[in-house]
């Protein structure tokens, strides 16, 4: 609650050039953003998260303070993730990390976690992102639409279809 009320003030100070305020915004959002990118299934999630924050700092003047900060930030992360997927260099790096990820998957406590990872892996990226933002990051449909730059109806259908697919794979209705 305190964080939520402090955010507009921090954003205003960051827009005025305060690196200290921006550092606090990074601290405030880093966990959620890193978790979102990791759940999307990218091996260089933390790297993309850092690039997202750097981009946000460099373009914070373009941010409309009347709007919530989180969808704007996650929107940048989503675009960076998509750019990264297209970059052959990142793809090579990711292949290098893939072996390590497979090893992690065989750690104890697989169960639902492994099933969920497999089920998420089968979803198209847009569907996966919409579902993650809606269920895991607790965004509203409107916030997801803004973050992913999609019409609201498309977001709702992505979430509904993604949910159905997950239910089918995880074997629960």
């Amino acid at each position, binding site marked *: 609650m305190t964080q939520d009320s402090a955010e507009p003030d921090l954003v205003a100070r960051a827009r005025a050039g305060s690196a200290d305020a921006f550092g606090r915004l990074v601290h405030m959002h880093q966990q959620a953003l890193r978790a979102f990118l*990791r759940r999307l299934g990218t091996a260089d999630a933390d790297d993309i998260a850092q690039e997202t924050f750097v981009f946000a700092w460099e373009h914070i003047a373009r941010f409309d303070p009347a709007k919530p900060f989180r969808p704007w930030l996650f929107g940048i992360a989503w675009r960076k993730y998509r750019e990264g997927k297209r970059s052959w260099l990142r793809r090579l790096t990711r292949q290098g990390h893939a072996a390590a990820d497979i090893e992690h998957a065989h750690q104890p406590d697989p169960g639902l976690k492994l099933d969920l990872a497999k089920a998420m892996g089968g979803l198209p990226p847009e569907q996966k992102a919409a579902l993650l933002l809606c269920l895991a990051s607790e965004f509203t449909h409107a916030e997801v639409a803004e973050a992913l730059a999609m019409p609201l109806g498309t977001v709702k259908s992505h979430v509904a279809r993604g949910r159905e697919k997950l239910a089918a794979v995880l074997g629960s209705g």
Partner: protein
Amino acid sequence: MDDQLKAQWAADVPASDPRFVLGVMTRIEQRRFRRELAVTAGLTACAVALLWLLAPTVEIVWRDGIAPYASNAVLLLGLMGVTVAVPYLLPARD
């Protein structure tokens, strides 16, 4: 199912990492430094190029216009310096 998924994802959230924040701020500083370096290097290159282009003209102006009077100019500058400095060195008394 939503609650099950939310619980699973909630357990996956990475810990708050001060090194991450530090990493972001370091990258920001590195970018700023590189940008400033590029601007300074660009301006320096422009200044050097301009000087190189103007060098013959400057040389002529110096040789024919300023050099013969250089000693007078130094004297003049000295006098101007003293004029400006005197009020500071000898402040007016009440």
